[in-house]
């Protein structure tokens, strides 16, 4: 019997993903041979707001690029403006930013683990991951006042402090998370049903990953050794860590890398809080930025690039945010080629897509 080709539309409203993405999947029987993404359901055009809001107000817009990695968007934007203006951020503020960064990484990765578990139909595991995640959200709420969008960054430093009793609470919470995560890790890594859905599915080699420009845990799971935190922004220069990489490159490795990154984040929080220096939270910033800078930060999903261009006016000339999912989409299309139709939702989940980042 001849093979039958057809085009199946996927999304935009799909039960697996809370966010809308649309893919046109060209399938031959059950195998996908080509996937063409079409985006734009969440396109707001927030980069154009630079014409209407001044550079201080843009911090809040940058934070709302994405609700999950909101803190890091604010931080990346602030650091690039600070670099242009030559502002020396107080050391304590840099440490606090790092702590909040790692807290949002933990919550983002736990969120992803839950969604992945839901994707392969392991509902109780989904609930476990989200239950653990609430602990870190409580800590974010305790220290910043918001659960997801914290708005503690400003150009020149941070607005709030993490006081000693909060530090104790955070250290206690991460200890509990570590303990509970060990249990969840066992299920993810030892359960045969999880293995059968993830092992050997959607393999990308290191060469392909580099050619397709993928970033973040998605690239590191295929053996690409880069993590923007090594660049030493924030307080990362003073902390001791190595990028977590796995040479395998399948969905199982991506899951493994992300779980290990949660443990790494817990370790980084401990290190940062352990050597938290005293000092001011922010320095006063005068004048307007003039110049341009490319700032790269490592978000839970990968490398994000902030391009700020200013010409001495209150409003910036251009703000460009290249988000990690934008870079990972070509890699996703590549993994989908040759995959079974039934694996598509799972493979889309393995890049940890954040569509509202992508479309801005």
């Amino acid at each position, binding site marked *: 019997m001849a093979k039958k080709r057809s085009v199946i539309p996927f999304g935009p409203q799909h039960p697996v993903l809370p*966010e*809308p993405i649309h893919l046109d999947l060209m399938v031959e029987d059950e195998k996908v041979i080509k996937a063409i993404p079409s985006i*734009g359901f*969440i396109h*707001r055009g927030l980069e*154009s707001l630079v014409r209407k809001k001044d550079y201080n107000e843009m911090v809040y817009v940058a934070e709302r690029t994405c609700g999950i990695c*909101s803190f890091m968007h604010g931080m990346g934007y602030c650091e690039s403006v600070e670099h242009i203006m030559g502002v020396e951020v107080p050391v304590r503020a840099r440490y606090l930013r790092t702590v909040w960064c790692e807290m949002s990484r933990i919550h983002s990765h736990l969120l992803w683990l839950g969604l992945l578990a839901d994707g392969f139909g392991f509902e109780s595991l989904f609930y476990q991951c989200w239950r653990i995640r*609430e602990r870190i959200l409580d800590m974010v709420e305790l220290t910043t006042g918001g659960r997801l969008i914290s708005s503690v960054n400003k150009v020149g430093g941070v607005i709030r402090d993490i006081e000693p009793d909060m530090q104790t609470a955070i250290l206690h919470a991460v200890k509990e998370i570590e303990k509970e995560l060990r249990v969840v890790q066992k299920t993810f890594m030892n359960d045969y049903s999880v293995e059968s859905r993830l092992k050997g599915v959607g393999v990308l080699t290191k060469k392909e990953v580099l050619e397709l420009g993928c970033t973040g845990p998605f690239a590191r799971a295929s053996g690409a050794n880069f993590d923007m935190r090594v660049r030493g922004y924030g307080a990362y220069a003073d902390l001791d860590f190595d990028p977590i990489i796995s040479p395998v490159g399948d969905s199982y490795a991506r899951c493994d890398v992300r779980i290990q990154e949660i443990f790494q984040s817990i370790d980084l929080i401990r290190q940062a809080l352990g050597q938290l220096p005293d000092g001011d939270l922010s320095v006063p910033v005068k004048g307007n930025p003039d110049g341009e800078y490319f700032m790269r930060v490592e978000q839970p999903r990968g490398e994000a690039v902030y391009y700020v261009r200013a010409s001495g006016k209150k409003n910036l000339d251009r703000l460009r945010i290249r988000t990690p999912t934008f870079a990972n989409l070509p890699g996703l299309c590549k993994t989908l080629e040759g995959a079974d139709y039934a694996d598509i939702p799972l493979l889309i989940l393995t890049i940890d897509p954040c569509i*509202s980042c992508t479309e801005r």
Partner: protein
Amino acid sequence: MAKVKESPWLLHYDGSSCNGCDIEVLACLTPVYDAERFGIVNTGDPLQADILLITGGINTQNKPVVEQLYAQMPRPKVVVAVGTCACTGGIFKECYNILGGADTTIPVDIYVPGCAARPQSIIDGIIKAVDLFQKRSDEHDALMDKQKRKEG
């Protein structure tokens, strides 16, 4: 449908939200906040949904999608706008691609403010929506009864 309020089905659509509210809507359904204790089931199918939760503003591309989802839901139906963006357009109101809140496209019954809306307020909004849904289905039933008697 005397006790329909004990099992309303929920449909969630992400307009042009920043994800913050979506994640909070999902967090509502998980063990810590557990909106499912009110008998709510989260469904992906508009044809079986009673309550539509919209997060994020409306842009030119998702407008027809939202309209279609709303049209596909059976009567009676209740719409909840979750988050400031869905209520008014929020911080993105001035963006070139944003038309405004969810009420620019479909009738909204309940507004849940917040950026991102907290799970507590989302649950509050859902409970209000459930009550309204019961009221509407009672009215709907009464109307159908009346029509039946007229015919019979």
